[in-house]
């Protein structure tokens, strides 16, 4: 797996060992020590995935994530040192696809990186077309259009949409979505799903406040409407 990864982390020691571990796992790694440098590297390198420390000098990791999301669907994994669980939600809402809490073991991080990269690599049997209400989903080309207008989705958002749209009416628990899309076992953080669904609704729903395409089944999970 020759994917290119951009690692933005201010601590030199952590930066070096994480880069070492990622290279050992077969990735190509570019590093940056602060936010502005990270953005510059991102524009220059066009990596397949970004590992982003939340607390960065210069430009906050959350701002970097928002900046990257302006024009890119690249997977972003946050490295969060903060204990406050609210920061995780803020980071996910800023555009991150997943997070790894510091301190972490390298195999754990590499597993997250692989899971994120695997997203958006459709299998051979996925070259089909789905419809959900006014949305036309081309699974093979990974595009979503409404009335001919393309809607840009991140890979995570796209996978959530496809998972739900494949079996309309079927209720998916968040645990199942965590396992199928994020490759988490049961102990994943269900807020990953909630935030991804929220971002997805903001893009595809005519009125995100009263969704009609992705419905919340209180106490259970989500299902596709339409």
């Amino acid at each position, binding site marked *: 797996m020759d994917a290119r990864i951009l690692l933005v982390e201010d601590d030199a020691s952590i930066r070096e060992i994480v880069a070492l571990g990622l290279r050992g796992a077969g990735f190509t790694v570019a590093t940056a020590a602060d936010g502005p440098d990270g953005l510059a590297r991102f524009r220059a390198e066009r990596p397949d995935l970004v590992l982003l420390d939340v607390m960065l000098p210069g430009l906050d990791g959350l701002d970097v994530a928002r900046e990257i999301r302006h024009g890119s669907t690249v997977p972003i994994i946050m490295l969060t040192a903060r204990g406050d669980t609210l920061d995780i939600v803020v980071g996910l809402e800023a555009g991150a696809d997943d997070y790894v809490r510091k301190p972490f073991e390298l195999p754990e991080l590499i597993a997250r990186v692989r899971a994120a990269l695997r997203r958006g690599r459709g299998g051979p049997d996925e070259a089909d077309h789905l419809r959900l209400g006014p949305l036309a989903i081309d699974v093979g080309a990974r595009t979503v259009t409404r009335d001919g207008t393309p809607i840009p989705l991140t890979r995570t958002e796209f996978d959530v949409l496809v998972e739900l749209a494949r079996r309309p009416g079927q209720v998916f628990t968040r645990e199942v979505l965590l396992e199928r899309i994020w490759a988490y076992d*049961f102990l994943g953080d269900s807020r990953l799903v909630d935030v991804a669904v929220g971002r997805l609704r903001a893009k595809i729903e005519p009125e995100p406040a009263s969704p009609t395409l992705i419905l919340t089944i209180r106490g259970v999970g989500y299902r596709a409407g339409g």
Partner: protein
Amino acid sequence: MAGTGAGGRRAVGIRARVAIVVVALVALTAGVLGAGASTVVDASLRDRLRADALRQADYDLGVLIPTALPAGIDRASLTASGLLDTFRLRTDVETIVDLGDGDPVVSSFDLVGALAGLPPELRAIVDRGEIGYAWTSVAGRSVLVLAGRPAAGAPAFYFVHDASDIDRAVAQLRIALLVGSLLLIGVALATARAVARGILRPIDAASRAAARIADGQLDARVTATSRDEFGTWAAEFNRMADTLEATIERLRAAESRNRRFVADVAHELRTPLTGLVAEASLLRVELGTLPPDARRAGELLVADVARLRSLVDDLMEVSRFDANAEQVATEPVDLGQRLRALVAARLPAAELVLPDEPVVIETDPRRVDRIVGNLLDNARLHAPGAPVAVSIARRPGAVTVTVADRGPGSGAAGSDLERLFERFAKADPARPGGSGLGLAIAREHAELLGGSLRVDANPGGGLLFELRLPVTGSLLDGDPTVTGGQDRERGPEPTRSQPR
């Protein structure tokens, strides 16, 4: 509250005591004055009556009777003279004339036989030829009797003056005095109560201030406006409260500094620790390629880094509790699924007993993970190799999760199992274990969820932890859903679910 009850009783006691003393003093004073006044008035009225009567008797015996009856006194002449009627009409005096024959002449039928009832001393004085007097009663009336003879050997005249006016006057005076005294006592009682209330008002205010301080309102003070003893006392009370408040503020500030320090230390440790954990995870993979001595050092290093990590993690968590920075995010949680995953990840050897029906409650799944995870870690560390059973039970208004081990825990901890929930409590100091914070953290999480975490000696030996979680909403019924359980068919079941 016991305190206010005692305070109230004491205040009433003082009021009652003041009232009793004042009333007793007023009653005593009124009694003495009243008795004295009535005695003096009684005596003076009697003196005047006696003086008047004496003057009258003197005149009658010395002048009037000899003039009216110059020829001597006998029954016939006496009756003919009409003297006795004259006396009665003149000054309302009844008369008894003792003719010495045992049949005295009387001016009124009331006096028939009265002569014998007169005091013998009086008759003795009369017999001596003097004028005498006596206070006595005749026919049930209080009377003054004056007696004497007009001349030696003449019949004795007894003039009976009515004294019942004096008795009536004195009796009326006594009633007036009694009524006045009672009014005075009433006024005194009201005054005493008012004064006592005035005196006790600062004490009541002080009681309230002290109660507020006891309830934690350290800024409560007594308003000290008066310049009397209470003013001084209130100033002293306030000074004490100032000192108390300042001391507690200082202690709180110090405690908060300590807590911040712990949080800062844990936070500062996290960055190098992140490096250490990542480095150790890489080193662990390569341990096999190292020479034996270096390999052993590497193994120890990896293990120590893991211990350090759990300690710093727990310290961070504890400092978040202390900063009250915890937010509870609840959602419907299938406890059985949660436990199955936890057991698989943390202690796959544990036996899991779940009800047939799914148990879904509204709670914070991340905190449930921490609680049960810490309990499983505790069992793994302190009861290594011992059988551990995890189970769920529904109770009225709650669901309990029980983690029971058959390790040496209860023996090592002794009788005081509550100590296990103290921070850095180690049931067995000889056994290197976790951070010593895991159970304290688990209990804090349980309380944040509105539940509780208790420990008991397992009847079969070992420790039995019971997590009690409140059931706020109704338990949800199952919907047609894709659940995790269906997908687990792909791998071997990680837990030994016991059929019921």
